[in-house]
């Protein structure tokens, strides 16, 4: 373990950290907004396609891509969790505790968001996109 990473590495580390904590949330938000928006608006316009792409394919993309992004965030959060497992908190200066807290939050919330996206995907398998 390097004790003093350079600023670039710290920035990358910081971004990875926030991806681990919030990646699933953002991916799910995108999934929901695009999935819902495309479905409701395409069906309201009476069309079963988004441009040249069939509606079901477009909707699958709004499920699969965010799901993959969430899996990535889950892996990042797991990494963060492991990196903070054996660090002894020396009380004052290095409160690793809060990183560990956020790592745990990241793992669990990414799992939750993954579940939501997958459940939406199951609905896509059984429901015709425009059935009311």
């Amino acid at each position: 373990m390097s004790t003093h990473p350079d600023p670039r590495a710290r920035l990358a580390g910081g971004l990875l950290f926030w991806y681990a904590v919030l990646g699933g949330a953002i991916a799910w938000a995108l999934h929901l907004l695009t999935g819902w928006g495309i479905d409701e608006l395409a069906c309201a316009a009476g069309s079963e396609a988004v441009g040249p792409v069939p509606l079901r394919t477009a909707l699958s993309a709004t499920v699969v891509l965010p799901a993959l992004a969430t899996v990535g965030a889950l892996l990042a959060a797991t990494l963060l969790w492991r990196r903070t497992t054996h660090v002894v908190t020396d009380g004052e200066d290095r409160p690793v505790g809060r990183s560990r807290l956020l790592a745990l939050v990241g793992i669990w919330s990414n799992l939750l968001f993954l579940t939501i996206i997958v459940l939406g995907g199951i609905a896509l398998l059984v429901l015709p996109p425009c059935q009311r």
Partner: protein
Amino acid sequence: MLGGVLALTGCAGGAPSALDPAGTGAGRVADLWWVLFWISMAVFAEVMVLLVWALVFRRRRDARVRHGQPLRFVAIAGAGIPLVILVTVYALGLRDLVALGDGPGPEATTIEVTGHRWWWEVRVPGVAGATANELHIPVGEKVRIRLRTADVLHSFWVPQLMPKTDLIAGEVRETWLQTDRAGTYRGQCAEYCGTQHAHMAFLVVAEPRREFDAWLSQLGSPAARPQTDAQRRGQEAFEQGSCAGCHTIRGTGADGRIGPDLSDVGSRWSIGAGAVSNDGGHLGGWIANSQTVKPGNFMPPQPVDAQRLPDLIAYLQSLT
């Protein structure tokens, strides 16, 4: 809680209960409800047992503070078990959603219902006439209901037959009804629609196909002719007074389109979409001044000649 269960299973006291389903859609949902209900009871019982256990065994006067973070119990009881239950329930819900979406085919009977403040207009495509606050369906068939609104949002709800569908301004919505049990089923507007939202009920009459066809043909034919002098005077008063400006009686000079078609008003179950029962007293009061019967409705008080009021009642009651 036990009392609640008892109350749920048995006596809803003649209410249009969603738990006394008569239709395919409502039947599905009632089954779903009982699954949800027992799961909920189990979860609730679990919580109560833990709570009572803590209350019984953990009440000690002991000021020593304890620490430690046993996460496993919280993770399993609070997240693991609920996850399994919820995924199951979600799947069940999805199954029933698919079933509710399995509507009638293109050749099925269609009935058009238009929501007005505060009554329901009922028409059948290809049939000339209209009626209000009462629609008939043939037993055993899936019937398409096409829903529009003339003004604000309403919601079409027959608890014993089918979950709600809202009537959206500027759009057409569809739902369907199917029942194997002949009978009458009460429905009511379920989306707040203004002053008299409380009095916007309707009836669904499920009857064998033959009687349904009779209803259809009656809906398409002119209203009954007056038989007595009083009724004839009543019809005259109706056509020449302000009534005809808003109401239609098929086969007469009255062809207003603002209020409900009154061609079969004598046979209806109520006046004012469930506001009061349909009999002479209420009818007379309604004609002369409906604002005291159903305040805020859009029919203005009618200055009818005193002698003509009994005639109008007689005439309208003869329209069956």
